[in-house]
């Protein structure tokens, strides 16, 4: 064991093995960079044997969440490789669904089972594959039975997850157009009048007809 004339060394014995291990542990933990054996020996009290302390420490950490590893000539404490996934932090960003996706979803909910062609007919524009894929990925829409029409096209229906998310018992609980209008969810458009209703309105509709026409 190397000895010199330092006061420390003449007064104290080398620390016990357990203490040396603690010391190496604390130094490795707090150092910003990997620490060489020579540096550990220099920092630990005289008579300490950093090399064997490191070896014992390495064994102690085997299988733990962190490991004592050799980095070139130096030593460091690092996360166990199998736990690397914990060092990823997921930031969940909530975004509103696009208008196209919402409309497509609404059509599927109201008209299910519905084919892509039917969705396009109702929306008046073509539906991109990505829109339906996104709804399927969200687990709000799934494939229904094929339609027994020429070409046997696939249909789409809404899922249990959809009902759960929107707080519905069934898709039938979705309010109809009249209810939507009553709830103020439709623009100020009057409904297409049934002949009976027309008679009820009588003179008024005569007076305001021009207005109605202009609104078209």
């Amino acid at each position, binding site marked *: 064991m190397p000895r010199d004339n330092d006061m420390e060394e003449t007064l104290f014995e080398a620390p016990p093995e357990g203490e040396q291990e603690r010391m190496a542990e604390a130094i490795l933990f707090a150092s910003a960079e990997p620490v060489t054996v020579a540096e550990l020996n220099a920092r630990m009290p005289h008579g300490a044997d950093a090399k064997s302390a490191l070896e014992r420490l390495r064994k102690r950490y085997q299988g733990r969440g962190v490991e004592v590893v050799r980095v070139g000539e130096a030593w460091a404490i690092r996360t166990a490789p199998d736990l690397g996934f914990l*060092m*990823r932090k997921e930031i969940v960003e909530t975004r509103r669904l696009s208008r196209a996706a919402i409309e497509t*979803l609404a059509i599927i909910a109201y008209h299910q089972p519905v084919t892509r062609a039917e969705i396009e007919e109702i929306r008046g524009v073509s539906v991109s594959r990505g829109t339906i894929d996104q709804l399927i990925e969200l687990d709000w829409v799934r494939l229904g039975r094929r339609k027994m029409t020429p070409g046997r096209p696939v249909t789409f229906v809404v899922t249990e997850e959809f009902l759960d998310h929107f707080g519905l018992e069934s898709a039938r609980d979705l309010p109809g157009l009249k209810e939507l209008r009553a709830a103020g969810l439709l623009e100020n458009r009057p409904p297409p009048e049934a002949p009976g209703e027309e008679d009820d309105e009588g003179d008024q509709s005569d007076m305001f007809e021009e207005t109605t026409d202009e609104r078209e």
Partner: protein
Amino acid sequence: MPDGDAFNDLEARLTAEALIVDVEGFEGPLDVLLTLARTQKVDLRQISVLALARQYLTFVGRAKSLRIELAADYLVMAAWLAFLKSRLLLPPDPADEGPSGDELAAHLAFQLERLAAMRDAAARLMGRDQKGRDFFQRGVTEDVTRVRKVRYTATLLDLLQGYARIRTKDEFRPYAMEREHVMTMEQALDRMRGLLAYSGDWANLSAFLPEGWDGSPARVRSSTASHFAAALELVKAGSLELRQSEMFGAIEIRRAPGAER
């Protein structure tokens, strides 16, 4: 420390002088009072506030004689202590409504004890193991990779409004909805061409209006207008004659005499 009045007096005097020299180093009058109180060598709870007031007034008096500028709050404290001293020395005046000298003295003693306690607590706090001096945090931190995950969401309201939007878009389609109330001139023309063969005599234009178009005023007006326009077209083509006997009178039509059947 040896006991004895002479020694204590000497020490108190030295302390008082040191106080004046170091007045800059004091953190206000309460700090001076606390330092003076320490010279009484008793528990702060048993301190003689009267003696303390005397010590403080002496301190301020000496500072003045040495022409040392004292901050205003030191002088305010001196004035207050002079008042306190008089209260403590004179028998209580029953007519006086203010708090008694003893109450004021007790509060001053409380303040001193509390300040001393805080000093002590501060010293104990700073004497604790401190991070970065006695214990250390991790030297190498592993950056947490931030993974952005987008979650799309929609509310029931979005859904309902989306559906309403699509359905009302149909209603906005020009003419589509109102078609049942509108008769075009072309439609009227087709009808009239077919009917003309049977109208050798003057007949009211309104008689030519189709069935089902005489109920609602909207339909009456649309069909009247289209038939009138159609009639004008036929007149222009030379296959129809048209007359009106008076202003706002009935419009009558008949097949033009020379027109082919």
